């Protein structure tokens, strides 16, 4: 194993390996970190918890050499240091695994590790592979050293990055939003790996905005809010509190005192809708090279929410896009209020009241550089009263935008602000405003809360409920089973391009959906 993990070093060191001492970092218009202090102890998983925009990434940036603090100091082993580059951070024994992979996909694992040697030398592939095997054995992972990185799963790529950091002698390992892209199983594996790492005396910083992970994997928890450190829970205290009390404490820290009751949204008893179906889908099929979709039959009554559960990538997106008119149907029919619409294009279906809230908010949902006002009309460009004979009507557009912005509580400096400058939550609000306003009969939500923070998740779910209460037929596609169970009247489960079962959302729904998802009863 690497030299720096010398066993002579006592695990319960009296001194932190790395300390941030009242660091402040400003960006134009915001104070990203405001006098944050932060100690890292060997043998500990230190969780950095906070919502989107709380300043976690900036803090990591200062530790890993991407940014320098404007004020305050960084201490390594008690000595003040200046971490001006990623290379310097590595020298100091601080290794970072960023949220977005820092591996070169077109190179093999060993080549990625060999990167950075002297220019004209041959990369020592065999030596690297040997060293890698040793580290892998130490921490209990298996990686094929000659596989191309691009062919590995995200979880495996993360393991590669962790192994690389250790091979370079890191004593501090920073995992930035490491579970954001992982499957639940991958996240658990990573948690177990962190446990093995700290046993070797390494200090792990685990950044997340997921409370349950913080509690499950962390020894010490620091909470950031709006660039400030609002609290720290030491290991002894965390153990003493127990999960429930710790959760309450953290929620109080993260959202302030006003929002203590987070997840406990009263699930209103909804009257079971039973009108004639407004949206009927029969034998829908889509040709797709990766996941062909076939034989989808589904009907949704007005005021009904049908959840579409399933592991991501099982044809949900193909189905939703085909329904919205963005993909060609291979077979099948779609009726909206009795009218056949499968031959209509996106605009035609929209005009008849079918709306699609995409999960690709920045890609196909909005044009980032356009102002909010135009983004709110993106699917109605050229239509009266906002355009007359091809001429833009600024007054009408602005009125429309102001109304929707206030109605949907989009937090923005103004309606002319480019939408790309807003936070993910506000972009989602704008998207919802666009798709839920006007004459609407049926809405498809694709992963509506993906990537949002807790408050925006709650707001979005409320919108979905309201949409159904207004009598719209709702299809809710989500990979978050909790969300599906919280909102839906019925749950359809999708697997490998087929709907493998539809169950009523009652007490036993969770088990049956779980069985369907894992293919037990298929």
């Amino acid at each position: 194993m690497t030299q720096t993990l010398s066993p002579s070093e006592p695990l319960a060191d009296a001194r932190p390996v790395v300390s941030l001492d009242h660091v402040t970092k400003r960006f134009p218009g915001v104070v990203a970190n405001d006098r944050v202090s932060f100690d890292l102890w060997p043998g500990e998983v230190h969780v950095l918890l906070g919502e989107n925009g709380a300043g976690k990434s900036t803090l990591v940036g200062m530790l890993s050499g991407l940014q320098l603090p404007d004020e305050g100091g960084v201490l390594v082993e008690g000595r003040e240091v200046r971490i001006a580059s990623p290379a310097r951070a590595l020298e100091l024994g601080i290794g970072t695994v960023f949220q977005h992979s820092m591996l070169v996909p077109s190179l093999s694992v060993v080549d990625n590790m060999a990167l950075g040697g002297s220019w004209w030398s041959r990369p020592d592939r065999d030596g690297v592979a040997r060293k890698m095997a040793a580290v892998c054995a130490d921490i209990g992972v298996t990686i094929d050293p000659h596989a191309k990185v691009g062919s590995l799963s995200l979880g495996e790529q993360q393991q590669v990055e962790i192994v690389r950091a250790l091979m370079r002698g890191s004593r501090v390992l920073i995992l930035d939003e490491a579970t954001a892209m992982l499957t639940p199983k991958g996240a658990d594996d990573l948690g177990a790996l962190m446990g093995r790492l700290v046993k070797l005396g390494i200090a792990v910083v685990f950044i997340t905005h997921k409370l349950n992970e913080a509690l499950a994997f962390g020894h010490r928890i620091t909470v950031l809010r709006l660039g400030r450190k609002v609290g720290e829970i030491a290991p002894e205290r965390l153990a003493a509190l127990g999960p429930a009390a710790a959760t309450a404490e953290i929620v109080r820290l993260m959202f302030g005192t006003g929002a203590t009751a987070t997840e406990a949204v009263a699930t209103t008893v909804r009257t079971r809708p039973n009108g004639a179906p407004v949206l009927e889908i029969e034998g829908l099929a889509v040709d797709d090279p990766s996941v062909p979709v076939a034989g989808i039959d589904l009907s949704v009554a007005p005021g009904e929410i049908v959840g579409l559960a399933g592991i991501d990538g099982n044809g949900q997106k193909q189905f939703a896009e085909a329904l919205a008119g963005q993909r060609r149907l291979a077979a099948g029919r779609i009726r909206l209020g009795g009218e056949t619409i499968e031959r209509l294009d996106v605009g035609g279906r929209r005009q008849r009241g079918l709306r699609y809230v995409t999960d690709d908010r920045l890609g196909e949902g909005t044009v980032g550089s356009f102002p909010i006002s135009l983004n709110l009309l993106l699917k109605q460009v050229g239509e009266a009263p906002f355009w007359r004979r091809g001429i833009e009507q600024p007054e009408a557009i602005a009125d429309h935008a102001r109304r929707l912005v206030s109605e949907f509580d989009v937090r923005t400096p103004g309606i002319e602000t480019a939408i790309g400058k807003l936070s993910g939550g506000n972009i989602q609000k704008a998207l919802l405003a666009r798709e839920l306003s006007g004459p609407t009969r049926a809405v498809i939500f694709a992963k509506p809360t993906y990537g949002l923070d807790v408050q925006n998740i709650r707001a979005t779910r409320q919108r979905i409920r309201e949409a159904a209460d207004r009598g719209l037929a709702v299809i809710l596609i989500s990979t978050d089973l909790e969300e599906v169970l919280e909102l839906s009247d019925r749950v359809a489960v999708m697997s490998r391009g087929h709907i493998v079962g539809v169950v009523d959302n009652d007490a036993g729904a969770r088990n049956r959906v779980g069985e369907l998802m894992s293919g037990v009863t298929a």
Partner: protein
Amino acid sequence: MSGLFTEAFLTSLVLGALTAGLPLMLAGLGEQISEKAGVLNIGIEGMMLFGAYLGFVVAYYTGSVWLGFLGGGLGGVLVAAPMALFCIRMGLSQIVIGIALTLGAEGLTALLHHFQFAQSYPRLPAVPTLAIPGLSAIPVIGPALFDRPPIAYLAVLAVAVTAYVFRSTQFGLSLQAAGDKPAALDAAGVDVARVRTCAVLITGFLAGIGGAFMSQVGAGIFVPFMTNGAGFIGIVLAMQARGRPLWVLCGALLFGACLSATTALQVAGVSIPTDVIQMLPFAAVLMVLVLFGRRASLPPALGTHYVRGAR
């Protein structure tokens, strides 16, 4: 038409393919190095042209072929240096700067030529060839391929060297990483800007030698705008070759054969209007793009400026 494929015709076709193809190959190889590192080098046409000019001038005044090629390489580097400064250090648009450098080199060389050589149009003596014993005695391809100026052999050798560098050196890994994921390279402690600067300067050197090859070996004379789009064909070659130096060589010889068909067909006495024949290389470029263009793969970071910590 039966008399078309005479030995004379074939020899002149192969010879022409090599003479016209080698500059393209050098340009394509250079462009490939830049693109691998994530720099779309549109200034390569200007680098070739300035190399052609400076190579000719040095060879003309010193009388040394080798110094001429060195001067050509230097000429290419002189045009590549501002590209590295503006695009890599300062982060200006690679496309705009590339076009500006090409136009600038065209204007400057035409102007210099006007004052120096427009009255006399001096010619260089033929570049001496080096016959490889044994191989040069093979009919048709012997005289065409193995009785060439030494620089031709070196140019082909450059393909092997480049392939070796790509595959088996740290610099090769760095180039690949700079074009695929510069942030990863930076995190590994390698200066992305330095790798890219090196790549662009090497491109300039190779393209400049390619230009000097055109003026010293191909024409024996410098004429304004003589590269005539060779650099741009080099860009196409680099994109089609998908990171493989050998493919650049093959593609360059194919285009070279098209370019040389004019002379070869004239030698064979075929009476097709030369205008039609001169379209051949460009028709070939179009064909290749139509057939393979969709499969061309470019490095993800191509044409983007790397800023540490930017997302």
